[in-house]
Structure formats: structure tokens, C-alpha cells
């Protein structure tokens, strides 16, 4: 991918820095976290930030920084799996729908509408309620909720791209629909998909937190951010620290992904891609 001057784009730089930090923490969690996730210290409950406990401790005296770091793992795995799955399904449905048109488009469009008809969080709740909690089940629920967005965007892009002369040229050569869809159309639709996916990571983290907050995420003692926020609100009046830290973790991560997405959107602008980008030679 050509990224003309990505370092000059502040959204991209800040977003990438935050994302790198969070991903780094998650990957290196055992080395970054000074305490065990479930290591309690009842004499030290609700301790404020100190050198010993960077972000303080929770109602069981567990180190919050360590729990946030391990929580990042859960959030990121669910975000990546659900966004990846949703993007994959939505892209294929959108490409097929947009390229073939006609009754194929009609059928796939109605199916998409059915999924869109449900309020997102209710649908996710219902799926988790049926399947039971667990990282994969939560991811699956989010895939079912989010794939429609990719389908709609990619369908729109495919509708435009299939009229391009190079697609006509491929048809004139006798290329199969599969080849046209994946060789000619998909590479040109990647820009919006990448932007949507990076923004979608933030949405997925919020949704996962919302499910955990409502008690439909991973059950305790899993250190999910949403559940920490949820029970943190119980002590809000006397010990607001718990809710603030977990809320901030969610907020900063989502902000990072959104800035990254915004930056990518500017950098991958189709107008910059189609004509400019490189030097032109003359005849």
C-alpha cells in the first residue's frame, strides 16, 4: 500500500502510537504486569495509585494495572476476531451482491436488511445468552452484528467498480466472475474496507465492554474492562478510581483505533490513489 507521507498525518501518528502501545501491552502482558491477574491483597483494597500499584487496586486488592494489561488481551482478541470475521463475510457478500446484481443482489440485500433490522446490542445479547459466555461466542455474536456494515459498503464500491472499463476489458477477455471479483474489483475496494475495519475495532471493543458491563461477557474473574467498569460503578461514590481507570482504558483504546482509522481514510483517499501518487512520464 502506498502511504504518501503518513508521518505528516497527526491522526495517523497518534492513533498508531496508541494502538502500538495497547497491542504491545497485550502481547507482552506477563512481562508488563507486575502482579498476577487474580493475586489478591485484602489489606490493600482500593489503594490509590502509588509506585507499588501504578493504577491502584480494586475491591479485592488486585493490582489494577495488571488487570488492565491482561484485559487488553481479551478486548483485542475479541475485537480482531470479530472484525476479521465480519469484514470477511461482509466483503464476500458485498462483492457478490454488487457484481452480479439482479436477483442475487435482491436476495442478499434482504438478508442483510433482516440483520440490520435488529438493534445491535439486543441481537448480540440474545446470541451470547443462547451460546453462553466465552471469547469465541462473544466474537461470534459481534460478527453477526457487524458484518452487514461491510456488506453494504463493499456492495456500493462493487457497483461502481464493475462499470469501470478495466472490468469490461476483463469480461471481454473472457475472465471468470471469480477472477474479476477478486483480481479486478477487490483490490480497488480495499481502501474503504481497511478504514471500516480500523474504526470497527473501536466499536467492537465498546460492544464487548457493553456486553461485559451487562454481565453477558466473560464471567469473573476474567479481567475484562467492561466488567471492571460495571462493578466499579458500585463503589463509585466512595472509590471512583476503579471505574475511572477501566473507563479510561476503553476510551483511550477506542480513541486510538478511531484516530488510526481517520488517518488511514485520509491516506487511502481514492482520489489520491487513482491519479496521483507517483511521477508521471511523458511520451
Amino acid at each position, binding site marked *: 500500500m502506498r502511504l504518501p507521507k503518513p508521518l505528516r498525518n497527526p491522526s495517523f501518528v497518534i492513533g498508531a502510537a496508541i494502538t502500538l502501545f495497547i497491542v504491545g501491552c497485550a502481547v507482552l502482558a506477563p512481562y508488563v504486569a507486575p502482579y498476577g491477574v487474580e493475586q489478591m491483597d485484602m489489606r490493600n483494597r482500593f489503594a490509590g495509585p502509588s509506585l507499588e500499584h501504578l493504577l491502584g487496586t480494586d475491591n479485592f486488592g488486585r493490582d489494577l494495572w495488571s488487570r488492565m494489561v491482561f484485559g487488553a488481551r481479551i478486548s483485542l482478541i475479541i475485537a480482531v476476531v470479530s472484525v476479521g470475521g465480519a469484514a470477511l463475510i461482509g466483503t464476500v457478500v458485498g462483492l457478490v451482491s454488487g457484481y452480479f446484481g439482479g436477483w442475487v443482489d435482491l436476495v442478499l440485500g434482504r438478508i442483510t436488511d433482516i440483520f440490520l433490522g435488529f438493534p445491535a446490542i439486543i441481537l448480540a445479547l440474545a446470541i451470547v445468552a443462547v451460546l453462553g459466555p466465552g471469547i469465541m461466542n462473544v466474537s461470534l455474536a459481534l460478527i453477526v452484528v457487524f458484518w452487514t456494515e461491510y456488506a453494504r459498503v463493499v456492495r456500493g464500491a462493487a457497483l461502481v467498480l464493475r462499470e469501470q*472499463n478495466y472490468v469490461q*476489458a476483463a469480461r471481454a*477477455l473472457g475472465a471468470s466472475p471469480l477472477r474479476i471479483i477478486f*483480481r479486478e474489483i477487490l483490490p*480497488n475496494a480495499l481502501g474503504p474496507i481497511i478504514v471500516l475495519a480500523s474504526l470497527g475495532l473501536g466499536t467492537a471493543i465498546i460492544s464487548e465492554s457493553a456486553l461485559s458491563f451487562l454481565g453477558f461477557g466473560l464471567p469473573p474473574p476474567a479481567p475484562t474492562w467492561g466488567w471492571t467498569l460495571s462493578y466499579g460503578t458500585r463503589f463509585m461514590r466512595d472509590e471512583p478510581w476503579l471505574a475511572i481507570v477501566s473507563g479510561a482504558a476503553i476510551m483511550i483504546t477506542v480513541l486510538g483505533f478511531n484516530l488510526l482509522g481517520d488517518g488511514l481514510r485520509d491516506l487511502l483517499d481514492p482520489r489520491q490513489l487513482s491519479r496521483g501518487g507517483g511521477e508521471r*512520464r511523458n511520451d
Partner: protein
Amino acid sequence: MSEAPLLQVEGLTVHFPIRKGVLQRQVGTVRAVDGIDFTLKRGETLSLVGESGCGKSTTGLALMGLVKATGGTVTFAGERIAGLRGAALRSFRRRVQIVFQDPFSSLNPRQRVRDIIRAPLDIHGVGTPKERRKRVAQLMERVGLRPDQADNFPHQFSGGQRQRIGIARALALEPEIIICDEPVSALDVSVQAQILNLLADLQRDLGVSYLFISHDLGVVEHISRRVAVMYLGKIVEIADRDALFASPTHPYTELLMKSAPSLDPRQRRIFSASSDFVPSATRKPAGCPFHPRCPLATEKCTTVDPALTSRDDGRLVACHHR
């Protein structure tokens, strides 16, 4: 004249329905191509000329099967195209290719030139990967590009170079006919000449036939052997190039010639149509499609559509009066 034509088109029509409202009720028809006949011989260039919207590009697309023809027959080397499926269709695709007008949108911006020119070879499984590589280099050289530019992307080339890439892609399968859909009208005049000369060279060396679609009479006079003039989806005159330019017979051909800009300023004049009514493919007049603008129009022209008939000098004209 005794040689059997490579391509024979009889009564080709392309009609598009105009649909409106929730129920998609058909409220009219665009008669883009409305029954045309012509033949194309091996190694010759037939030009299709006419004003914008007369159906010349649609004719090309219909021949390629990119737009569905609604009627008529197209015979290529003795085989009817309309019924082609599977293997026969694939072989037809190999033998008839197209070069598009816009050198920017006709090349995939995400593919390297190497892959663009290779695509036809990949699709039809021609040769081994090594042979395809060699063929790409050879094709690039043939159309006047440096083979070491094969790994560049289309945006790194100028319009003329991009059109050469398009021509190389069309040549890859050694087709017998190349449909050139306004191949030079998007280019600068100096580059136009280079591309036209390239097309002429290729024809001389490879014996390929061109169906050359253009609205530019200067270009058409330069490249064609025969010229077919289209008006509102009909061919109104087909003649050898010299005969057509020397003595246009159909009143529309005459008007077209007169309205072409001249290099001599003293020859310049403003040509006005004899009527304000400009017919279109959606509201086509009865009888001869040209009669509302024709200076020779009589009662008969408003009711009877003249057929394309042969004249003494071998040309075909569709007019009651000439």
C-alpha cells in the same frame, strides 16, 4: 470483393427499456442501435462514424457481448455469435478484442503493467509461465514500450503510453479483429498520430482487422479503408473512404463533412441545421430518422424508412432522393 467477410452483421439491434416508478414499468425504449448491417473483411479497417449518441459505441460493445443485443445476427468466420457458449465463446473472445477510449479507466490502477498484459494469457491458459513472461516483454516492445517498465503501475505512464498498454493487452491473444472504441479521442493530437501509426503498423504486420469507432473525421480519413456513417442507430451510408470523402451522397454524410472544422479560416462557416428539432434515440421520428433535419425531405421521408441500397459506384446509401 469475392473474399468472404470475416465478420458479418445483419439487422443488429440494441434496445434498452426505460423503466420508471416502483413497479419498474417500461415507459419507453432507447433504440441505441436499430437494425444495422455491415461486413468486415480480413485485414481491413472499417470506420463507424457519427455524432455522439448515434449508437456507434453500443455497436462495438454489442459485438463484444458486453451489451446484450436485442436482435439481428452476427456471423464471425462462418459461426453465429449470438448462440456462442462455453468453449466456442472462449475461442471467440480470443479472436475478437477491444481497445477502449479512456486510457485511464481501462487499466486497473492496482495491477502492474506486467499483470495487465498477462491477464489474457492467464485467462486462456496460453503457454507456460516462462513463455508468458517472454510474451509480455515482446508485446511491450511491439507497441513501443520499454519491457523494463513492466513492473510499473498504470499511473506512472502518460495517456499515450497507457493506450499502448491497452493495445498490447488486446494483441496478447493474436486476435483477428480489434474493435477500437474511440482509441485516440482522449489523447493529445501529437500522441494521436503516434497511436494511429502504431495501429497501422500492427495491421500491416499482423493482418488484423479493425472496426474503428470514431467521431473524428480527420482520424477516420487517415486510418480507414471503408467508412460507415451512423445516424440515430442506423447506418445511412457505407462507402470506400476516398469515394465518401470526395462525394458524400447521403444528406447526413454531407452535413457531417461540412460541419467538420477546416484548417483554412476562409473556409470556416457556421452551419445551421434546418430545424430546431433534434431527434434522439428515445423519440425517434417515423420514416427516415434524418428527415426533421434534412434539406431534401419530402412527404415520403416522413413515413417510409429508406433501406440501405447499392449504388452504381458500389456504395450503399439509405436515402429516397440520392
